[in-house]
């Protein structure tokens, strides 16, 4: 239930921010469409801790900051490689995933993809196939460069049921 409420609040905030009008009529339309979206989301059974990880809010903020820094560095690296100042040496590697939850895995794989210079290709039984543009980048991934910053997803009870 708390996920539904928080999603509803988020959707309504989005409506107000995008429309920018505060007349009762338009706000009423907003409430109606939020309720409708919530109804559909509930029916699709997608409102849960996975699509809407409120228990991670503060950890996520730090995660985005650190990831942002990494993305910045990786961008410069890839730019240099495209322009030919550094060599392009593609690598195909296999990473072990320590994350147990689906959310953790998705965050790990997507963080790798989001960092230019490394892209996750395939996922198989706790292993992630990654294509990197440089040997150094591959080594960094082996050393747990990205894995360390993924927030730990400790929703013990309901995650176990979900698996």
């Amino acid at each position: 239930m708390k996920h539904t409420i928080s999603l509803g609040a988020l959707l309504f905030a989005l409506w107000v921010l995008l429309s920018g009008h505060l007349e009762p009529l338009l706000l009423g339309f907003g409430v109606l469409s939020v309720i409708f979206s919530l109804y559909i989301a509930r029916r699709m059974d997608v409102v849960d801790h996975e699509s809407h990880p409120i228990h991670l809010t503060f950890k996520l903020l730090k995660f985005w900051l650190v990831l942002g820094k990494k993305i910045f560095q990786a961008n410069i690296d890839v730019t240099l490689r495209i322009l030919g100042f550094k060599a392009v040496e593609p690598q195909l590697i296999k990473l072990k995933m320590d994350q147990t939850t689906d959310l953790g895995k998705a965050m790990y794989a997507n963080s790798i993809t989001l960092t230019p210079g490394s892209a996750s290709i395939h996922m198989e039984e706790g292993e992630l196939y990654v294509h990197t543009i440089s040997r150094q980048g591959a080594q960094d991934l082996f050393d747990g460069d990205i894995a360390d910053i993924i927030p730990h997803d400790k929703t013990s009870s309901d995650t176990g049921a979900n698996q």
Partner: protein
Amino acid sequence: MITDILTGVFVSLGCTLGLIGGLGMHRLDDFYARLHAVGVTDTLCSFFILFGLALQTGLSFVTIKLLLIFLFLLFTSPAASFSLANNAWQWGLRPKGTNSEPVSSFNKDAS
């Protein structure tokens, strides 16, 4: 005045990154390598351009819209890239110039 200069710097940086990414689409010789070029244009390039534009408006609805555009791009691009790469992999496309099977660690004396 100072915001104008900052906007100029950020927008031109973003455009440069975009152009480099576009160049990378042609310089890199393999689908998987091109993914990284697109990664550059999807992340830092759009961030710079949108941030530069946001500086022009101060804090207003427009800034929030720019932020939302950036967030949408940020959330959708890795999902799109991953499903694209995963499809290519399962279809049977293999990257050029790499070990044909993924390695799980580098040997010190390899290659």
